[in-house]
């Protein structure tokens, strides 16, 4: 889709792209050689991506354009005022859980240096783990089930799988020492996975053409592509299974 006329690019632009692509001799090659080297490099990358089964590989032309866009963006950025380096974590012991989609959440946490020091002093071989708890309600204190995930002391975030629909999840950070003693350091707020009525009532959908038309005729494109949503796909899979049965 992005198609600059690469013949119009200046030597400086081509050298910039070549440097970004890691070509060592970018400064000594002439224009034609640079073009040839870059085309070759991109073709190799594309072939490799196709070989790995990735259906979409960006074309060489698109790479030229993308790198140029980046080149443009970089031009003024070094001069922007007030840009500070952000800390990796903050001085607190806390964990957050962000809902990403019906199957995944993202946990990020920090442990304050005083807590870490206390743990290190109490045991040389302490370890940290995340406890993903499933709750019957939003009450965080009464989990119905839980699963533990071992993490490193250097880890600060983790993607959490949410296996069931219509359930409430929280995640807590725990420590454990060599003797099996341990405790909770912090706990997140809860997130609730959505549950569609139609997953459990797919029989109605199968038998009721009117409802099916009302519900799905606005969710599928002219070319037959459905709105991209894993839960919607689950509804359709339930429907297909019933129809197959």
């Amino acid at each position, binding site marked *: *889709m992005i*198609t*600059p*006329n690469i013949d*119009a*690019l*200046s030597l400086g632009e081509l050298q910039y792209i070549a440097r970004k692509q890691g070509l060592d001799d970018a400064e000594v090659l002439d224009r034609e050689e640079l073009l040839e080297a870059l085309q070759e490099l991109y073709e190799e990358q594309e072939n490799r991506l196709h070989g790995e089964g990735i259906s979409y590989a960006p*074309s060489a*032309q698109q790479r030229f*354009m*993308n790198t*140029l866009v980046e*080149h*443009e*963006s970089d*031009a*003024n*950025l070094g*001069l*922007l*005022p*007030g*840009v*500070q*380096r952000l800390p990796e*974590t903050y001085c607190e012991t806390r964990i*957050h859980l*962000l*809902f*990403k*989609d019906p199957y*995944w959440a*993202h946990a*990020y946490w*920090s442990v304050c240096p005083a807590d870490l020091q206390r743990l290190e002093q109490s045991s040389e071989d302490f370890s940290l783990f995340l406890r993903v708890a499933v709750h019957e309600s939003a009450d965080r204190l009464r989990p119905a089930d839980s699963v533990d995930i071992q993490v490193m002391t250097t880890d600060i*975030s983790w993607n959490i799988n949410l296996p069931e629909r*219509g359930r409430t999840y929280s995640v807590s950070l725990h420590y454990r020492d060599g003797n099996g003693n341990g405790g909770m350091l912090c706990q997140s*707020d809860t997130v609730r996975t*959505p549950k*569609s*009525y*139609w997953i459990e009532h797919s029989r109605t959908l199968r038998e009721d053409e*009117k409802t099916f*038309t*009302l*519900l*799905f*005729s*606005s*969710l599928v*494109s*002219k*070319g037959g592509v459905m*709105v*991209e*949503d*894993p*839960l*919607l796909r689950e*509804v359709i899979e339930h429907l297909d299974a019933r129809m197959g049965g």
Partner: protein
Amino acid sequence: MPRNSLGLILNAHMPYVRHPEYPRFLEEDWLFEAIGETYLPLLRMFRKLREEGVPFRVTMSFSPTLCAMLSDPILQGRFTDYLRLHQELGEKEVERCTQEQQPCLPLAKSYLEMINRNLQEYFETYQCNILSGFRDLEATGHLDLITTAATHAYLPLYHEYPSAINAQIELAVQSHINHFKKRPKGFWLPECGYFPGLEEYLQKEELSYFQLAAQALVLSEEPVKRGNYAPVTCPNGVAAFARDYHLTNLVWSNVEGYPTDPHYREFYRDIGYDLPMEYIKPYIHSPEVRVFTGYKYFAITGKGNDKKFYVPELARRKVQEHADNFIYEIRQKGRKLAGLLDREPFYTLAFDAELFGHWWFEGLDWLESVLRKVSQTDDMLFETQLDYLKRYPESQVLQPAISSWGEGGYSTVWAGGSNVWIYRHVHKAIERMEELAIRFGDQGSLKQRFLNQAAREVLLSMASDWPFIIHNGTSSSYAEKRLKEHLGNFNVVYENMCKNAVNTEWLVKAEKRDIVFPDIDYNMFNQKSNRNRYNG
């Protein structure tokens, strides 16, 4: 005969990009391209229809950051410089095409003509503030203007922070009143990002409806009765309209949508990239930074790189075909739904405004044609969400499901592998802002200004644009820097206030740099005082 009701919502939004510290700034072109290629031509088209008595009712959302930029004298001045520069390039292009590229000459002339018209209307009709044009169209009943989150924040990822969501919505309404002298009734959910309960915040600001992603009603925990063909009422009484994916995809899809037709103009072939540096240099960014100039002579043609010249006449014919096809699709849909609904169907057609004219060059001609053709039928009409709610005040009470219109249907675009790291910092800034609002409530003078600046910086860091750009991978270093800049600025205030100090020199500079939301009140981050304000 039951009619098909079309509810078109155009969301006009640009992130806040304003760098007076530089003579020209690359990312400011985003705004200028949108004004020149979408907003001014859109106003032209709406006014023409109004003059000719063609009836239409359309909803338009204007983001507060866009309103701030459109009203900013520095950016207004820069936009005129931009137009004049492109006018000069147009004159040079007419000369060049006359001598070297005859097939492109008519197009070069028409681009130049469009720039001349833009310049004339920008000065003479709108006195450099195009918002007045949209306000005027609302006054005559053709547009319903609504608002969106103050910095277009993707709200589901701030679920844990009610003060921040409140601030985004309260400030949006305040900004809308300032710019349009009227309280908005509707709210555009940025990226259609919804979580159950979000409507509570909207109700506090007397907002009566919002739009949703297409799957939000079908995936509800209760069965929806009318699919996406009528709004539902959330349990608190705020109405929700789900987007019609089938109809919007005819326009929106980059695989099967109308804009992919080979006869239409190719966006990415632009003389800014195609012509030699020595020719184009005065019209791009210094030192030798190639950018889009708007002078584009090729048609999409196909997937390959060999493009044919763009032929406007062929494209015009396609526009008519596609407008007819759209009408046909609506009619077919209406026939399919006949007997299935107890009321006339409403199709929510929600788009980013910049698709029309900017991304899809012929998009405005298509829209004009559809508006005209629909006005000549007796089985379809364009009406606003409010019109439909007046006609059908009773609707099903239903809690929509969490959803967005992003890839995958939820939050992964704004919280994926490349950009999820930002929330640790933005969330922390919100918590610290809440802390400041509680510890230093109702300050006056310098401290008040200092804290207001902190609130501005937090809100600007919440913009959905930064994670989106990082996700897309183009201009990502700018987005990252902007995010860090706002968070860094916030930290300056936080650290100073923790020492009960105000850095006056810094404050004056910061206020000059980010003058968005002049009436902001940092106390909105104090949840307790918010409760009192609402209860009082």
